């Protein structure tokens, strides 16, 4: 019978199944970071348990780390989390890319970079954006700390089999439209809980022509559509990306692995529980204006009005969101001024993202009323960008060029947007207070954020690109 990749990968990881119980699933790769792991290790210690497979676990430090003046951490509590992770990794024998290690970076950026992320694996991390790794055709999902402890002790998880959903992106993307715009458009169209209880496979011509980095941006935000996980069937692009990465097999073993990976792709004629479609050509560069990722529109639109919604609770939600965001109904998006720009996060801080932003700002200056920072997703990305001279383009334009980490995506370190100020951000969540108490976040692509940095307001990056050409 024709099967989806979701069923293929799931079925081959079942350790035990029984009617009336979730499946006991084997976990191939467990990624760890400093914020959601300390209580799990403490649990192990209290119960006198060991880590079953330290060799299948890998840790990094990303959420708390400062992005300047390394290695000094001012915040004593953050410092304690960092040293706690160091101690835990040492005690339990887990490989760690610590704060100053050349491999350090945001966990979802370094997994693929190192080739730890591979098609067909089950991958978990105490972090919801673990869905990023699905871009390779892995089943990858975020878990809570109790589950982190469960995986550390047993290398398994009890999981009820989710339903399957296909989101097909038909046709080709227009000029200046990126993967970020696609996923924001999908969430705006179908809602932030459309994927609840499902693993989503993204398919269609637009996906096939994307690079791995673009596919990662798409899968990264499947959690913002409520999905348990998001993934993409592997193809030659996947194989080419992985070849020669540190943790993938080499030589003949690689060719063998690659053949297996390609065979995982969803079979012709396989059926999903639900299929949704969206037309790539209709997607514009996107900007969010509200307090959840579905509250966004194409750049040519206006902030919606209560009249645009039929039901009371939606009108109410709009009013609450706009009150928080300090916006009025009907304002054209291109008239909204910003004070901050953040280019970074596991959604959009890979090399191609930085290139896209640099292309827009080259030879121009950041608007005088804007503070702009670039935070590369990993030390490797930072190094590669510097080799290409991207750092010069950014700093000459007036951006700050920082060390890698999560930074202003969730503002647990010192990178915070002040209350009442507005940030054009390439991250993934625009919840109230996400970038600092009272901060106002607008999500968009790196190119759109770069364009906003120059103009001091939202602009259609396609106009700037045309002016360039």
């Amino acid at each position: 019978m024709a099967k989806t990749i979701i069923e293929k990968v799931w079925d081959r990881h079942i350790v035990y199944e029984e009617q009336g119980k979730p499946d006991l699933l084997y976990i191939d790769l467990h990624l760890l970071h400093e914020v959601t792991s300390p209580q799990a290790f403490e649990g192990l210690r209290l119960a006198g348990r060991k880590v079953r497979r330290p060799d299948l676990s890998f840790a990094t430090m990303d959420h708390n780390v400062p992005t300047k003046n390394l290695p000094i951490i001012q915040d004593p509590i953050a410092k304690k989390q960092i040293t706690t992770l160091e101690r835990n990794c040492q005690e339990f024998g887990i490989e760690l890319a610590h704060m100053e290690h050349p491999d350090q970076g945001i966990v979802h950026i370094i997994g693929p970079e190192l080739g730890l992320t591979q098609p067909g694996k089950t991958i978990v991390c105490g972090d919801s954006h673990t869905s990023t790794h699905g871009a390779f055709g892995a089943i990858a999902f975020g878990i809570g700390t109790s589950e982190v402890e469960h995986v550390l002790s047993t290398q398994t998880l009890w999981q009820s089999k989710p339903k399957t959903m296909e989101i097909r992106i038909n046709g080709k993307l227009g000029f200046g439209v990126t993967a970020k715009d696609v996923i924001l458009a999908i969430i705006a169209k179908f809602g932030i809980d459309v994927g609840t209880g499902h693993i989503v496979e993204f398919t269609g011509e637009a996906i096939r022509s994307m690079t791995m980095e673009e596919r990662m941006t798409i899968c990264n935000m499947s959690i913002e559509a409520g999905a348990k996980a998001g993934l993409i069937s592997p193809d030659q692009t996947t194989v080419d990306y992985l070849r020669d990465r540190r943790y993938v097999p080499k030589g003949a073993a690689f060719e063998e692995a690659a053949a297996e990976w390609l065979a995982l792709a969803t079979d012709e004629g396989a059926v999903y529980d639900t299929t949704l479609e969206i037309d790539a050509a209709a997607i514009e560069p996107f900007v969010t204006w509200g307090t959840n990722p579905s509250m966004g529109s194409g750049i040519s639109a206006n902030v919606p009005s209560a009249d645009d919604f039929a039901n009371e609770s939606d009108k109410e939600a709009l009013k609450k969101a706009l009150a928080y965001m300090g916006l009025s109904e009907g304002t054209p998006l291109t008239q909204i001024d910003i004070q901050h720009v953040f280019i970074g996060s596991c959604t959009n801080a890979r090399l191609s993202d930085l290139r896209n932003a640099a292309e827009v700002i080259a030879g121009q200056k950041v608007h005088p009323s804007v503070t702009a920072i670039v935070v590369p997703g990993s030390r490797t990305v930072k190094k590669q960008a510097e080799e290409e001279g991207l750092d010069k383009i950014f700093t000459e334009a007036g951006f700050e060029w920082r060390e890698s980490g999560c930074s202003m995506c969730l503002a647990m370190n010192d990178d915070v947007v002040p209350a009442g100020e507005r940030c054009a951000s390439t991250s993934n969540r625009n919840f109230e207070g996400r970038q600092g108490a009272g901060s106002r976040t607008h999500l968009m692509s790196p190119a759109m954020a770069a364009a906003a940095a120059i103009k001091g307001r939202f602009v259609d990056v396609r106009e700037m690109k045309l002016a360039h050409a």
Partner: protein
Amino acid sequence: MKPINEVRSVLTPLDHKNVDTDQIISKEFLKRIERTGFGKYLFHHWRYNADGSVNEKFVLNDERFKESTILVAHDNFGCGSSREHAPWAILDYGFQVVIAPSFADIFHNNCFKNGILPIRLSVGEVEELLAKGKAAPYALEVNLEQQTVRGEDGKTYSFTIDPYYKQMLLNGWDEISLTFQYEEHIAAYEQQHA
């Protein structure tokens, strides 16, 4: 984990949809390395104004709900990050039951690992509960064994729950100890896939 079966309390009506984990527990409170002590930070930015004063308008600051152990809210409760600090904060504050039309997956899972009972009722039923709970304090009797929620006026709602998680909550089981009983299967799987 403490077993849970019957819970009686007035409900706290939280009239919000898409309550995200950033609201439940804001990131500035995620730096503790313990599982306890998060309750005082629950919904911090809704409970307190920017100047630190108490936001009298927020439902958790309403004296009538101070002892409540049942939280009721709109759909997609617990969306956002995987932080288990969210259920820890809810439990530590004193809630044992959360009722909503739908929950985000990771949050829903996290509840069962911490002895919190998440109950799904229909949108209409939840709206009815919220309306009653907002009009005047309204007491509920939750019974997990029977899978029912009974209002003080006798109106009864039934809910479904995965039988596996029901047993876990009723017995307060530690899931890891349970899984160790499957060691044989895990070892066999590892051998096969080595």
